[in-house]
């Protein structure tokens, strides 16, 4: 018993040393069960977020205001489906199938980013999502390109390139609106008002309340804490908003020279954590609608998947008979 215990400790230490040397962990390498579980949860949630995230934006494809905007939005939403695919594949390398992950999404067991439980009532929401939501996603994801798990890190490199293009596109939508008619400017400001706080919340609970952070940092899955990333995001977005004449809806927002180890940064107001937890628990404006839409698509597509399966078996049988 003691020997087993010692071996376990030795293997954990060896694993940690490998991480500390910045070596990548690959699918067939041995890894602690908790490391595997953490990654499956995180990559799975990330994949689900890409897939559910197609809904609020897909909502505006048929109503996009110009052909150019329609084409960019279609391309963007298509990229998200692609990100979902890579990420499910990355999670599958850890031993969980896409089918299992999909079932967990549809049953409500698995989480996805709460941001997609907010509605997109106007065209400006498409700009705000690109600018703020993709902007926040990039803050989270750029460090993930150096994540210790090889397949995830590699998937993130491509995803980050595409996300950063999406963010520029979103900001450009907001810029165009802010230079437009009075109605367009108001539409842009209202969208910023709607998306600001949910975007700030996207980084997750404060470090003090984030139980998964410590191990994730130690294992180099995460390189920065939630609050560090949130600060980077606020510091990046506030001047961008000023530049296009929009007002960040936070009366407590002010420059604080003590932030960022004395280099200065923006102090921001109190985050409404009650709202955050309420949406995480399923009581956001669109939680039911998003999951119902995915369930409906899945159920209505079951005959198609069954037919594809049956056809593949028939083809294989015919091939074997011919041999």
């Amino acid at each position, binding site marked *: 018993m003691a020997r087993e215990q010692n071996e376990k400790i030795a293997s954990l230490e060896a694993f940690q040393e490998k991480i500390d040397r910045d070596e990548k962990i690959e699918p067939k390498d041995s890894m602690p069960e908790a490391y595997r579980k953490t990654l499956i949860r995180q990559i799975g949630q990330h994949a689900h977020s890409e897939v559910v995230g*197609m809904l609020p934006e897909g909502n505006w494809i*048929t109503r996009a205001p110009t052909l150019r905007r329609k*084409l960019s939005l279609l391309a963007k939403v298509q990229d998200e489906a692609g990100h979902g*695919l890579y990420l499910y594949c990355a999670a599958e390398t850890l031993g969980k199938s896409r089918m299992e992950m999909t079932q967990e999404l549809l049953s409500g067991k698995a989480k996805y980013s709460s941001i997609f439980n907010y509605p997109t009532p106007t065209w400006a929401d498409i700009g705000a999502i690109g600018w703020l939501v993709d902007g926040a996603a990039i803050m989270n994801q750029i460090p993930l390109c150096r994540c210790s798990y090889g397949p995830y890190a590699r998937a993130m490199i491509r995803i980050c390139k595409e996300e950063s293009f999406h963010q520029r596109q979103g900001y450009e939508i907001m810029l165009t609106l802010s230079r437009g008619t009075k109605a367009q400017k108001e539409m842009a400001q209202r969208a910023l008002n709607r998306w600001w706080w949910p975007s700030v919340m996207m980084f997750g609970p404060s470090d003090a309340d984030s139980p998964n952070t410590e191990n994730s940092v130690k294992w180099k899955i995460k390189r920065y804490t939630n609050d560090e990333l949130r600060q980077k995001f606020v510091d990046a977005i506030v001047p961008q908003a000023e530049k296009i004449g929009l007002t960040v809806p936070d009366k407590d927002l002010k420059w604080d020279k003590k932030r960022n180890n004395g280099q200065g940064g923006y102090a921001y107001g109190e985050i409404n954590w009650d709202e955050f937890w309420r949406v995480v628990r399923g009581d956001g404006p669109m939680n039911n609608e998003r999951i119902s839409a995915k369930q409906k698509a899945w159920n209505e*597509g079951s*005959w198609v*998947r069954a*037919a594809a*399966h049956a*056809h593949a078996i028939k083809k294989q049988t015919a091939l074997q008979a011919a041999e």
Partner: protein
Amino acid sequence: MKSNMADMVFEGLLRIADDNLILGHRTSEWCGHAPTLEEDLALPNIALDLIGHAQTLYCLACEINSRYKNEDQLAFLRLEHEYKNLLLVEQENGDFGNTVLRLFYFSTFMKYFWERVKIKCCFKKLKEFSEKAFLETSYHSKYASQWVITLGDGTDESNLKMSNAIANLEPFLGELFNNDDFTEMCSQNDFLPEPTSIFDSWKNEVEAILQKGNLDFPDIILKKRGGRKGEHSEAFGYLLSDLQYMQRAYPNSSW
């Protein structure tokens, strides 16, 4: 370009552009709601191509007719009777089988259409565009044909659904191959091929694919028609109210 020639080219471009825009619009409605994630990627990708074709063709049409200042004015700001698309492309999607069968019919038609334009077309810019359009529609036709075979051959349920889709779309196929005075003029001037000239190639290919899916080739006679003259179905008004919403609600704005 002489004015009667310009009118012909303008009208011809509109017909093809409208078909592509409206089918692209319908295809894009699937985004996020497809039976698999792969199809959630493929269908917006095809919609992107179709709407991209429409955009190029509207731009060419604007160069011909100075009444329209840009492609968006053509795509978003005409009245219902000014759209010249086929009734086939404006029908609601129905189930996934109906959607891929319609895509198969249309893209196979367009594949042979562009193949002919590539060989002969008096309008040089369209002839150049046909190279890319031919490749893309060939891919759409291939993608859709694989689903038609898969669903036709798959299970009893999927075969029945595909047979229903064939019956559902049958009344709209006649219009696809209908020659009129305009198509005759286009053909006489070496601008566009006559729809009937595409029929044999189309039939051979469609019949072979349907057969692989244990499905019967439909009767093609002229039944429902009117799209080419701007006479549309009820469903089209709802489509336009989505498509045109922003341009109508916020006129004279830049986006």
